[in-house]
């Protein structure tokens, strides 16, 4: 299969790589760049475990053909913290016990991050809607919604 050049900015770092044409953005992140924080749970864009932020929007990276994102800016869970300094969302997930198995957590955080960028003071219903594409089987979502609400408050929104 022919390889093509892909240019991306991933978590602030410029990436230039020859990749197979049929790779999904998720494959590039996990297999080519070793960023395994984004997970594959269903492969059809239903579970949200692969959610990343592409050009400011939360997307299911299992549904994005990598080359279609050429030139794009990608943020993944690995880029949320600055060194040891966690993002307020991450802090808030810790404080609210908003995770259990942790498999959905990266995608959940990225959906919440995209929401807070667009809407710094979301209501509970808006939070629920923003994460309704991210399935979680452990938590029942209650502590996650709390965590997002609290993060918004800490960031000076809500």
């Amino acid at each position, binding site marked *: 299969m022919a390889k093509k050049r892909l240019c991306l900015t991933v978590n602030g770092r410029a990436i230039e790589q020859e990749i197979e044409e049929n790779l999904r953005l998720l494959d590039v992140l996990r297999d080519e760049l070793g960023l395994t924080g984004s997970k594959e749970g269903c492969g059809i864009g239903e579970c949200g475990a692969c959610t990343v932020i592409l050009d400011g929007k939360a997307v299911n990276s299992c549904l994005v053909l990598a080359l279609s994102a050429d030139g794009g800016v990608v943020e993944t869970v690995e880029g949320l913290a600055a060194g040891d300094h966690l993002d307020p969302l991450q802090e808030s997930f810790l404080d609210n016990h908003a995770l259990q*198995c942790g498999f959905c957590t990266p995608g959940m955080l990225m959906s919440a991050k995209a929401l807070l960028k667009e809407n710094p003071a979301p209501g509970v219903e808006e939070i629920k809607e923003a994460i309704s594409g991210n399935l979680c089987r452990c938590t029942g*979502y209650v502590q996650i919604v709390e965590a997002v609400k609290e993060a918004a408050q800490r960031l000076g929104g809500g």
Partner: protein
Amino acid sequence: MSVHDSWRVDAREKVTGQARFAADLHIPGQLIGKVWRSGQTHARIVSLDATEAKKIPGVVKIMLAGDMPAHTTWSTYPFLAQGRVLYQGDAVALVAAESEEAALAALAQMEAVYEALPPVLSLDEALEESAPILHNSYPDNRVANSHWPVRKGNIREGFEQSDLVLEREYRTSHVEHAYIEPEAVVVMTDWDGSLIIYGSTQNPFNTRRAVAAATGYPLNKVRVVQQAVGGSFGGKEESVGLLAGRASVLCLATGRPVKMTYSREESVIESSKRHPFRFRYKVGAKRDGRLMALQAELVDEGGAYNFQAQFMNWRACVHAAGVYHIPNVEIDVYAVHTNHVFGGAMRGYSSPQIIFAQESLMDELAAALGLEPLALRRLNFLREGDETITGQILHEPVNAEKVTLRALDLADYERKKEAYRRQDPDTRQVGGIGFATCFRGCGLGAEAPDATGAILSVQEDGSIVVRSSLTDMGQGLQTAHAQLVARELGVSPARIVSKPVDTSLVPEGGMTVASRGTYSGGKPILQAVARIKQILLHVAAQKLECSAGELAMANDCVFRREDPSQKLSFAEVASAAFWSGHSLSVTEWFQPGPLRWERETGQGEAFPSYTYSCVVAEVSVDRLTGKATVTKLVSVHDAGRVVHAGAASGQVYGGMAMGVGMALMEGLNFERGLVTSTNFDRYLIPTAADIPEAVFEFLPSDGNSGAAGAKSLGEATVEAVPAAVANALAAAGYRLRTLPALSESLLKRERG
């Protein structure tokens, strides 16, 4: 919540993406393993041909049943089917290739000829006289050892003494665990030729057994290292054993590491499901509501294979009559084989199904007697000193009534019930409120020895490693164990590292099931802490020139109670103990006392302790579309003493969500035995938008047998939810006797 109660051992790694799940591993030189499945409901294998598949570039190895080095089965499950396939997930060939693409291309080139055999497509069909026989050793299609009877009093007299007798049938469906992480393993050999399996497994020691069976290796040459597990709920058991066994034989056959990851579709097709049940209940009561007799037949669908029904059905017989005092009982529980995906453990282990049936029955009986649901229950609740249907006198506090009254109070039940009764039945949106009360035997009870182990080591710098024989699959067990250690040693949790199970490092401590992780798993931890503490206090006493009895441990220090200024830091004491030759690594084992059980009558001592729960549900139904919504859930649990409030709350909320799913939306769809809902587009589980307002309370209690007073909680949180929702729906005018209560069923009822 206190600071300690939001702390988790693995939280930082999980919010930063560092936590490593099995599919995140990459071993240099690894091959990709794939399974070729039958896709047949029931068929004879006429021929399998891999000739063309082997020609695909990058294909390294293709194995058929005849190529297996040792056994082709583990328990009754085939690693590779021979001769006949019993359901669509049966594997008939394995492929190892240099890439995913090559492996998938090989699968596409495999050729098979099958001859269809008559299938058994439901538990009713399995029981028919003329039903095809699926396993020759069980000509009646009943799962081996799955029959558990209960005989108490005189059932005939019980019904004769009853003023009212009610018979009802209830049913439940196949429910998928739907852990978000599909099964995955990576297998490699160590330099001594032994196998190392990194995997997503709930029960690493069972995975080890499966690998030993498939490879013929002794257990000491198989090492299973649990990775972060992305949810399990009872599910990462049979399918992971099969997966690890298959990957291991591919690894040995190729001499290369092998990674196998299931797609969601494969996960749904092969992994076990919550057993669907058919319940036939006959209950007799006096006019005043006193229960006199209960006769019940509980049949569950084991599917193509089974090694869980016999255990699950034992628990089922103990809980079949609910948390009530009934003098005359005749219960029979058994499972049958079909050509569907097999049943297995799923959070609650038959209880969510049973409680749905039996608590629906209580509400129906109350209505038939003209009693309020609460009044009927209060008259019959088990109380301290009462005998259960399985002949056990309850000596510990029995809090069925207490949790119920508290939950109803929190839910404002009486007022709302009246308000719903006054609602206009002709409006489009109608509502209702209902509840269910239950108890749950803690741990394994008389099902199997509840023994387990742990290793606690304090390092010379004062840092601590905790290793339990039981696993964390997301519920937070490692955190709960670390919390127990921190509390007992008076140290900060940050000092503690709590590790996942590695079968080469900890004693085999049984399966992490039956909500025994804290209840039983905490016991060897506490025993180990006590021994370590004794050593540390002894050493500190020498240094502080006092007796050990004068010392206390708190705030990361050891100090004299009388004069806290005389103190040593925890690290100083640890270092002094180590350098004076003391062992600070302790292995402990919890050995439970024997429990008595007589199989023929189902009488004995089932469980040392019971958790009591009540759930109140409020629902709203759109009469035009049939769509039901749970608007509020209230639950109260007597789980003894809660060890970690954050983790315990997470269990409650998660259990509520899973219960709502089972009540309203979840049931696998089949077409001639083949699953049609193989991914989340067709198998729906609750999203954030489906979650009702959730309120809960723990009712603290003492005097139980759990570690640090903690009773079972994980499963108790889910089990009464479907029943409560069903009773709320009934209050809104929709008594449904089959779950899930899909809008189609409600609409059908609405239109008669």
